[in-house]
């Protein structure tokens, strides 16, 4: 097995609770994404990077989601008791979320799942984020900063104005490289060239991504070839979010054997080495 697979930093995982959170704000951050800020004291605000919540999204008109909707933690702060989500309005669940206004409440079940695993001995880590995958990876900015690990964030988007969270990374000292569809710099070939340079220049120890299958394949190949740690946060349809219903099982390869794992409980963060292409 390549890279550092089961290590590292001992994180105290907070058991989940179903919290009645209060909406503090729910504003557009660009023409596609909204940021929902909640007051959610107790277990919820102890969510670790890569963990998620199962949200009881409100019904809106004809949009009546029966299941909860899993959503990655964009930010969680035990000091203020606030939890944030970054989302794109795409379906039944997010249509309802979009309507929330200040002082309304929302039941959020979490924190759920296994988050990212950072090794304090790392010198540098590299993340590659695109679209809503960024919401999942953004908390790594604070996590890397806290451990004194240098970070390069390669942010991919359609255009300059749809880039998200650049300031959040930059303000914590991360190097931010944006690649765009509009000038062709977001092509897989270009990202690979870029990543090889960053890894060589910075002595990067670990690669992180979320969401895109193409980027996951690329990072899996690079981490294997260069013997780096690599982690990916996976997305999968979920119902309970707790490991009971078995609907989010994906197939992974562990020690040459194909095994089924529940994305909600054994993940959503997995080693790139065990993810199948």
């Amino acid at each position, binding site marked *: 097995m390549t890279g550092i697979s089961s290590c590292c930093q001992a994180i105290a995982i907070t058991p989940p609770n179903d919290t009645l959170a209060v909406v503090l704000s729910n504003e557009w951050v660009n023409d596609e994404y909204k940021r929902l800020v909640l007051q959610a004291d107790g277990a919820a605000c102890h969510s670790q990077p890569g963990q998620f919540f199962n949200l009881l999204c409100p019904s809106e008109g004809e949009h009546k989601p*029966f*299941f909860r909707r899993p959503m990655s933690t964009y930010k969680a702060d035990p000091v203020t008791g606030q939890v944030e989500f970054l989302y794109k309005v795409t379906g039944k669940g997010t249509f309802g979320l979009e309507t929330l206004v200040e002082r309304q409440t929302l039941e959020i079940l979490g924190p759920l799942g296994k988050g990212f695993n950072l090794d304090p001995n790392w010198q540098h880590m590299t993340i590659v984020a695109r679209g809503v995958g960024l919401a999942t990876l953004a908390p790594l900015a604070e996590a890397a900063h806290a451990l004194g690990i240098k970070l390069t964030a390669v942010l991919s988007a359609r255009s300059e104005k749809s880039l998200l969270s650049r300031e959040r990374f930059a303000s914590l000292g991360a190097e931010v490289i944006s690649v765009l569809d509009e000038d062709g710099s977001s092509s897989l070939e270009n990202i690979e060239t870029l990543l090889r340079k960053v890894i060589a220049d910075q002595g990067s120890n670990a690669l992180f991504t979320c969401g895109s299958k193409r980027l996951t394949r690329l990072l899996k190949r690079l981490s294997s070839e260069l013997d780096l740690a690599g982690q990916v946060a996976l997305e999968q349809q979920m119902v309970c979010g707790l490991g009971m219903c078995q609907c989010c099982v994906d197939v992974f390869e562990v020690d040459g054997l194909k095994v089924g794992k529940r994305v909600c409980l054994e993940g959503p963060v997995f080693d790139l080495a065990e993810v199948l292409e």
Partner: protein
Amino acid sequence: MIDLSVNIGGLRLKNPVMPASGTFAEELTHLLDFNSLGALVTKTITSEKRTGNPMPRVCELADGMMNAIGIPSKGADLFIEKVVPFYRDFDSPLIVSISAPSAQGFADLAARLSDVPGVAGIEANISCPNLEAHGESFGMHADTTRQVVKLMRASTSLPLWVKLTPNAGDIVDIALSAQDEGADAVVVGNTLLGLSIDIEKGRARLGNFMGGISGAMIKPLMVRLTYQCAQSLQIPVIGCGGISTADDALEFIYAGASAVQVGTATFIHPKTMNLMVNELEVFCRRKGISRLSSLIGILDDSLAAAFGALP
């Protein structure tokens, strides 16, 4: 002090609320007080390892859901070694749901579990609609039900519950055959076989094509089947299907259920069962009832009987 306890074929439960198989697991301890439940019912296990059905395994409906999970199982060895010991820390009785490809397989697994400390009873899942094509299962017919229960009864002295399927033509006939062969209770019942179609893709929404419907949308059907079974059986009926509040549970109890199982509701609100027990107590207090079991089967059907609406 209100007595919420019920008696299921010799097994006394502190209250009538328990999980439906497949909607409950160790991970719920963070959210739910297991000791406040009437019983703990495991996800169905099989002797051998099983991987389950292709994705997607679930889809949502207007007021419910469909699943075709397909009983992924880590096998009996791992279950006995890892899962049963976990549940020994709780005082609510552990009911192990089992399935097998043959009647003898049911009996063998039941016999094996009978020697495992901490197993208080067995629920025979003869009704999963997602294992064979077109929802076929042992529970679809009285004769195959009879074979399974007969061999199981001979192989275990543990309380034996038989989970029936609403997909059978005459569930009462099947329930009677389970009773004849020595079942201690029947559970009414498993999910209702359905087909949901994505018209854009022209395909079924589930990887397994058909799947089991659950949730509030099936409740009236399951209350009716519970009533019909309770009218004909001497052994207790455990009601199940679309129960998410104490009021829902009471409908089943009025119809003749001695206890209820809660499934889909837990997926949406994991604390549902604890709240339901509290609400049942509040209901009894409001009605001035000291023993909840006195409500079992009190549905007033005299008028319907009088004008011949009942069989």
